[in-house]
């Protein structure tokens, strides 16, 4: 992946006396997450594959953001939550102003709780032949994620009555599938099938979280992450600060718009911000311009 230039990057050189007014306004105020991405709840994107990546930190705040963003926008969301329980997401979503239980009841949200599904598979009674568990690959010899893909496809297929906007698939997080015994190729195949089905056929969006690190020794994980980077339209890369922990700046986020994916001659656009996570929202600001410093 070619590294992007700083064209369009929102970095203010502290030496310059006169900064553009709009830039200064945005820097001094807190920037909303969706403003950074150029999308708004009234007008969500279509057919996009967004990769959330974190290194040396926890990027799950981005998952919470996208979940509440798409639900507020009126999209139908299929959330494959592999690592945490429903109540965890529900409590955070409430702080962000979204009621997950209500969305689930209305059919706007299809929630796959991986932990619960796994327990049902291993400890439950014999399953019905027509309804294989989405995590079928855990028991049995085949490491394929076909059952998981079928679950996603069926969840997001539009039904006659409901009139939600474009479908969205959200996965938290993909690296867990490797820990559970799925082969890297199987994971990539699953994502590929989901892209064809959700992004191309249904004009929906996919958002996937993965963990990675430069000095990681998990080669399978790095393989999956690098491959996904090549095929993503947008990459949000949350990194812990290289200098260590800081109370006012929790990390740095790199926003990479992969324009080169759609148009051959275009270069990727890279923007770098720092962020601080609070109880009910996340504030973004230009590097070195945290409120604590100004």
């Amino acid at each position, binding site marked *: 992946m070619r590294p992007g230039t700083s064209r369009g990057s929102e970095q203010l050189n502290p030496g310059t006396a006169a900064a553009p007014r709009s830039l200064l306004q945005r820097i001094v105020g807190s920037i909303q997450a969706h403003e950074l991405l150029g999308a708004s709840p009234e007008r969500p994107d279509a057919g996009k594959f967004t990769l959330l990546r974190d290194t040396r930190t926890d990027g799950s705040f981005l998952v919470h953001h996208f979940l509440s963003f798409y639900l507020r926008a009126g999209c139908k969301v299929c959330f494959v939550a592999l690592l945490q329980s429903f109540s965890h997401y529900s409590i955070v979503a409430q702080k962000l102003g979204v009621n997950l239980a209500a969305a689930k009841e209305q059919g706007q949200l299809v929630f796959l709780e991986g932990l619960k599904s796994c327990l049902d598979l291993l400890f439950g009674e014999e399953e019905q032949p027509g309804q294989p568990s989405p995590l079928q690959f855990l*028991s049995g010899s085949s490491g394929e994620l076909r059952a998981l893909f079928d679950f996603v496809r069926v969840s997001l297929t539009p039904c006659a009555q409901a009139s939600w906007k474009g479908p969205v698939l959200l996965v938290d997080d993909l690296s867990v599938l490797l820990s559970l015994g799925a082969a890297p190729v199987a994971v990539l195949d699953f994502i590929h099938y989901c892209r064809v089905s959700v992004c191309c056929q249904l004009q929906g969006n996919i958002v996937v979280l993965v963990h990675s690190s430069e000095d990681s020794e998990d080669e399978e994980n790095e393989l999956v992450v690098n491959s996904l980077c090549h095929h993503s339209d947008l990459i949000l890369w949350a990194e812990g600060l290289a200098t260590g*922990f800081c109370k006012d700046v929790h990390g740095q986020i790199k926003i990479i718009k992969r324009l080169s994916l759609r148009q051959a001659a275009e270069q990727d656009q890279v923007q770098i911000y720092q962020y601080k996570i609070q109880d009910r929202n996340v504030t973004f600001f230009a590097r070195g311009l945290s409120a604590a410093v100004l």
Partner: protein
Amino acid sequence: MLNQGRCTYVPALPRRSSTIDDLKIQLETILAALFDKQIHCKSRRDTASVMAAGGGVAVGTLLLIEEDKYGLYSNLLFKYFLAEGIVCGHDLFVASAKEHPDNILKELPAPLLDDTYRKELGDEAEVVNSEDFQDSMKIAWRYQNLPKIEASPTTYTKFGHYYDLSKKMPPELCQSVKWHSFYLHEESSFEPKMKAWNMNSGYARLLQSLQRIISQEGFDGSDPQKKQRNVLRIGIQSLGSVLWGDDVCCSDPPEDPHSLTKFLYVLRGLLRKSLSACIITVPSHLIQNKAIMERVTNLSDMVVGLESFIGSERETNPLYKDYHGLVHVHQIPRLNSLICDVSDTKDLAFRLKRKLFTIETSLFADAWLLLSPNQRILGL
């Protein structure tokens, strides 16, 4: 977990005692006090504030301890977790492939339930704290004015208990709680259904046993008749070692690299849906395959690594003369909240000082790094 003000004080040794037996006798549990905070967390919403206050293991979560080289301190923490459970009246589930759980429970330290003794500890702590901290700042004098990462011991007298390692817990106290044991070599062979799990049979049997206890005893809320809901404390010793039938500690690549991570995932599911808290010790220093340790860390809520100085060059390094080991916090829980509980520092060391066992910022570790190589050799 280990942040602002993490000190509990214990009856102490004379200074410079370095024999292992002395350490064992004198070492008391700071973490037992921490572990006990979980029962005061009534709702999940409180978790973040309890953790921020330095509280221990939240209900429904897993604390993974990476064993120190000889398993000394990790074994002690394991026993304290169980001892605290007995004193609080929680049910216990003890699993091991090494020691029989009956023997583990016989070796638990005796609690100190006398209030006056606790007050004495508090006074002693304040005295030692002020005088010793002054003269120890000769090398790292720049750090002298930084806020100390210690709290007065009185803040912890409401939560947790103190223990005396030289005495064993009285058998009648042990028998006052309901406890379940799982000793791998005495368990019957697993059921055919587990064959399809694709998991190491020892782990599969343990999960089966755990699930059975949780549902039979009603820890998952399945029995609406039970009004008095208790907490189940689960302790699993040396998971991943060869005794469990897993070769992850002796081969790279292991025969089945996914057994351990699958086990942790299923365990996580069981913990999340029940009123239980779990501590696991893992001999991670034996695991060659670092990819597996990365995955294990991601699948645990809280991961703490212990590094003791016994037998290492740091034991004789004058900069570390007051410390007995380091505490590495690799992972902290992120539950029910956007923010995670980040502490000001993650470089912590534990030490024994007269009658005190403390965990503090290892300022000396940082100072050591600032010195030139010659200075380090000379111990200046």
